[in-house]
C-alpha cells in the first residue's frame, strides 16, 4: 500500500534537471508513444488504466479524451490546469516544483495522444516562482529535442507554453481558465458547448489537472492494464494527498487508492496521528469544497464499514453521511477546533472568489458569509441556522459553474453534522467567545 509512482524519484538530488531526470528513466513514455504507438493507442491505454481526473471531479480521463471532437483542419489544444487554489490542496505545487519534467513529459505524451500541436500550462499567479522552474525545464526539453519541430524524428511537432493567471480561484474552473487564457475576464462560460467541442479559441480542447497529466507517463510506460491493478475497484492508481491541519506530519503523501482513512490519519508512515495527543473532531477530505465529516463518519461509513481513501468509499452515503475525494486536500481538525469559525472562513473565501456573474452565487455567498460572521462573533440568532441551510439550497445547483455548489456544500454539511455546535455558539454567545465547543458527546465515545 505504499507504492510510489509519481514521487518515485523525489529524493534523487537534481531530479529537477533534465539530465538527472533522463538518467532516472524520464521521457521513456515519449519515446515509447512517438516511436511505437499511434495516438489512439495512447488514448486506449489511458482508458484501460481507468484513471480518474485528479483535479476534483473524478471524471475518467480516458473517457474525457475520447469525447474530444476531431474536425479536419481545426487545431486541438491540451491545457494543463495548474491553477491550484483549492484551500487545503498543495500537491501540484510540490509536483511542479520538485519534478517539473514529470509534468512536461506527461504534456508531450498527452498532446501526442490528442493530436495537439500547441499546449498550454495555465499556472496560478501566486506560483510565479514555479513558472520560472517550468520555463527552465521547458527550455531544457527544447534543447534536447523533446519539444519543438519533429520530436525524436517522428514528424510530430509540439510547442508548450506556460501562462500565469492573476490569482483568481475561479480560473481553476476549466471554462473560466480558457477565458483567462484567451486574455478575457475569467468568467466561466455557459455549458454546453463543452471544451471538448469548443474550448480554447473555440477549438476542441482538453483541460486536465497537473497530477492527471503527470500520471500519463507512468501509465504509458507500464501499460494501462498494469496501472489499473493498483488501487481498489474503480479508483485506480495512486493519488497525492495534501495532508494538513492538526496532525503530527503534515505534507504530501502518495497513497495507493484504497488505503483505510484510519491508517492514513494515525499511521506514522502518513499523518502520524493527531497533534499533542488530542482527539480527532472532523476531517475535510478533499479540499474546502467537499462536505466536512465528523470523526465517526470519516473513519466508518454509515453502514459501519471501514472508510477507505477512494472515490467510491468516501462518497458512500451521498451527502447525508459521505463526502468526496475531491482534489485530495486532507484537512484534519482536532477537538479544540471551532467548526463555526472554520465554516465562516470557508464562506469568506468563496465570497471573495465568486466571479459575480450569476446572481445566486454573487449575492448568496456574501449573505452566507455575513450570517456566519454574525454567529461566530456572538450576535447570531437561532433562526440563522435554518436561514443558512435555505440560502445554501438556493445556491446549490442553480449556478453556471460549480463554484456555487462548492460554496454551499461546506456550509450545508457543517450544519448537518455540527448543528449542536452552531446552536451552542448562538445560545452561549459570551462563552463561545472565550472557549471552543469541543467534541459532541455523541462523538466522544467513538474516536480515539
Amino acid at each position: 500500500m505504499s507504492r510510489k509512482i509519481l514521487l518515485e524519484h523525489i529524493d534523487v538530488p537534481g531530479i529537477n534537471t533534465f539530465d538527472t531526470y533522463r538518467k532516472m528513466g524520464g521521457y521513456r513514455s515519449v519515446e515509447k508513444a512517438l516511436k511505437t504507438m499511434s495516438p489512439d493507442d495512447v488514448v486506449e491505454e489511458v482508458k484501460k488504466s481507468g484513471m480518474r481526473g485528479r483535479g476534483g471531479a473524478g471524471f475518467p480521463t480516458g473517457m474525457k479524451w475520447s469525447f474530444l471532437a476531431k474536425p479536419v483542419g481545426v487545431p486541438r489544444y491540451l491545457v494543463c490546469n495548474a491553477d491550484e487554489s483549492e484551500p487545503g490542496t498543495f500537491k501540484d505545487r510540490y509536483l511542479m516544483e520538485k519534478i517539473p519534467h514529470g509534468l512536461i513529459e506527461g504534456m508531450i505524451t498527452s498532446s501526442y495522444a490528442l493530436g495537439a500541436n500547441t499546449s498550454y500550462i495555465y499556472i496560478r499567479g501566486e506560483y510565479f516562482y514555479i513558472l520560472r522552474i517550468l520555463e527552465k525545464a521547458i527550455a531544457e526539453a527544447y534543447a534536447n529535442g523533446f519539444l519543438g519541430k519533429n520530436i525524436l524524428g517522428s514528424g510530430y511537432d509540439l510547442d508548450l507554453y506556460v501562462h500565469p493567471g492573476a490569482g483568481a480561484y475561479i480560473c481553476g474552473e476549466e471554462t473560466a481558465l480558457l477565458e483567462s487564457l484567451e486574455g478575457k475576464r475569467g468568467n466561466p462560460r455557459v455549458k454546453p458547448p463543452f471544451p471538448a467541442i469548443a474550448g480554447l479559441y473555440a477549438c476542441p480542447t482538453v483541460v486536465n489537472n497537473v497530477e492527471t497529466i503527470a500520471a500519463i507517463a507512468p501509465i504509458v510506460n507500464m501499460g494501462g492494464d498494469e496501472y489499473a491493478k493498483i488501487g481498489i475497484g474503480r479508483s485506480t492508481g495512486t493519488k497525492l494527498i495534501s495532508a494538513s491541519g492538526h496532525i503530527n506530519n503534515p505534507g504530501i503523501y502518495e497513497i495507493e487508492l484504497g488505503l483505510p482513512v484510519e491508517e492514513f490519519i494515525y499511521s506514522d508512515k502518513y499523518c502520524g496521528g493527531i497533534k499533542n495527543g488530542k482527539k480527532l473532531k472532523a476531517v475535510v477530505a478533499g479540499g474546502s469544497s467537499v462536505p466536512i465529516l465528523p470523526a465517526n463518519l470519516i473513519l466508518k461509513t454509515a453502514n459501519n464499514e471501514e472508510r477507505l481513501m477512494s472515490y467510491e468509499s468516501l462518497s458512500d452515503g451521498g451527502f447525508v453521511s459521505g463526502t468526496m475525494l475531491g482534489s485530495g486536500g486532507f484537512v484534519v481538525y482536532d477537538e479544540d477546533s471551532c467548526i463555526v469559525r472554520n465554516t465562516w472562513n470557508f464562506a469568506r473565501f468563496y465570497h471573495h472568489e465568486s466571479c459575480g456573474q450569476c446572481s445566486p452565487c454573487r449575492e448568496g455567498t456574501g449573505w452566507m458569509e455575513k450570517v456566519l460572521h454574525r454567529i461566530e462573533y456572538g450576535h447570531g440568532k437561532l433562526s440563522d441556522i435554518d436561514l443558512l441551510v435555505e440560502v445554501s439550497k438556493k445556491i446549490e445547483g442553480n449556478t453556471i459553474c460549480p463554484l456555487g455548489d462548492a460554496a454551499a456544500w461546506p456550509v450545508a454539511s457543517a450544519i448537518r453534522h455540527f448543528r449542536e455546535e452552531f446552536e451552542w455558539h448562538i445560545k452561549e454567545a459570551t462563552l463561545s467567545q472565550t472557549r471552543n465547543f469541543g467534541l459532541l458527546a455523541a462523538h466522544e465515545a467513538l474516536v480515539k
Partner: protein
Amino acid sequence: MADKIKVTIDGQSVEVEPGTTILNAARQIGGDIVPPAMCYYSKLKGSGGKCRTCLVKVAQGSEKDPRPMPKLVASCQTQVMDGMVVENTTSPEVLEARKGVVEMLLINHPLDCPVCDQAGECDLQNLSFEHGASNSRYEFERRTFDKVDIGDKIQLHMNRCILCYRCVYTADQITEGRVHGVLNRGDQSEISTYISAAIDNDFSGNVIDVCPVGALTDKTFRFKNRVWFTKPVDAHRDCDHEKCSGNVVLWYKGEDVLRVTARKDQYGEVESFICNTCRFEKKATADWTIEGPRKIEETSVISSNHYEMAHPLPVIEKNEVLIEANKKMFHKKIK
C-alpha cells in the same frame, strides 16, 4: 431545412426549428408559461445564462433519452431536443428556485422604486411582484456606490445594477468600440468606464433601453415624469444614420415629447436599435411622422390610463388548439 422538432412546455406542445432554446420555444407558445428573463436579450449574441431567473426543469431529456436532467437548466441557453418535456410554472421546484433568485437579486438592489425612473417599466419590479417575497431576510448593509455621469446623456446608478451584462454586450455589438465593462469580482463587481471615461458614440443611448432595471437612465428624462402618466406613440423619421431604423416610441405628456425610446416588444426587448440623434435630440412632434398609439401589454402599469391594448397573445399560426387556448387566456385577462 431540417425537420422541426417537438417540445412540450407545461403541457403545451410546439414544433420548433432545431437549435431553438427552451425560452424561445416557450415564447412561440406565449402566455404565462414563458420563463422570465433578466439578462437574456435575443438581439444580443452571447447574452443570457447569468441571472438564473429563467431556470426550468427538464422532466424528459428527449424522445431517445427520456432521462430528466439532473439540475434545473437555464432555459435561455439550453437547446430543445426532440420530445423534450419541460416544466416551468407546473414545477414547484422551479418556482421555489426562482423565488430564491429574486430574493438574491433584491439583496443589493435598493427598493427605491418611488424615486426610480424605471418604475413602471422595470423588469425586476415585475419579476419581484410575481415571484418575490413580501420582505427580505437580508439584514446587513448593502453595497453602495455613488452615481456616475457617463457622458452628458446617461447616468449610471450602480446601486440598482443587477449585473446582467446586457449593456456590455450592447456596447460590444451595437456601438463602435466599448469603453465600459465589469470591474472587480463577486458582489463587488461594478459596471464602470474604469477611469471615468465618457461613453461617447452614436449608439450609446441603447444601453438605457437594454438595462432591465434603473441602473442606466436617460438624463434628458430623469425626474421629468412617471412613465405611467405619459402616453406612448409610435413614430418614425427618415434617419440618415445607416444603422438606425428611425422607428421609435415618443412618450407624450400633453403636447410635449418627454422622451424618445426604441420600440420594445412584450418581453421588454427593443425591436430595433436607434441612434442618439433620434433619442436625445429630436424632441419635437414636427421631427416625426406619427403612426398611432403604442400598443402596451395589458398587464403593464403603463396601460392603466391607456386606450389601446396589446394584441391577443401571440399564437402559432395554424395551430387550432393553441389559438383556442390563447383566446380563452386573452378573454380571461381583459375581464
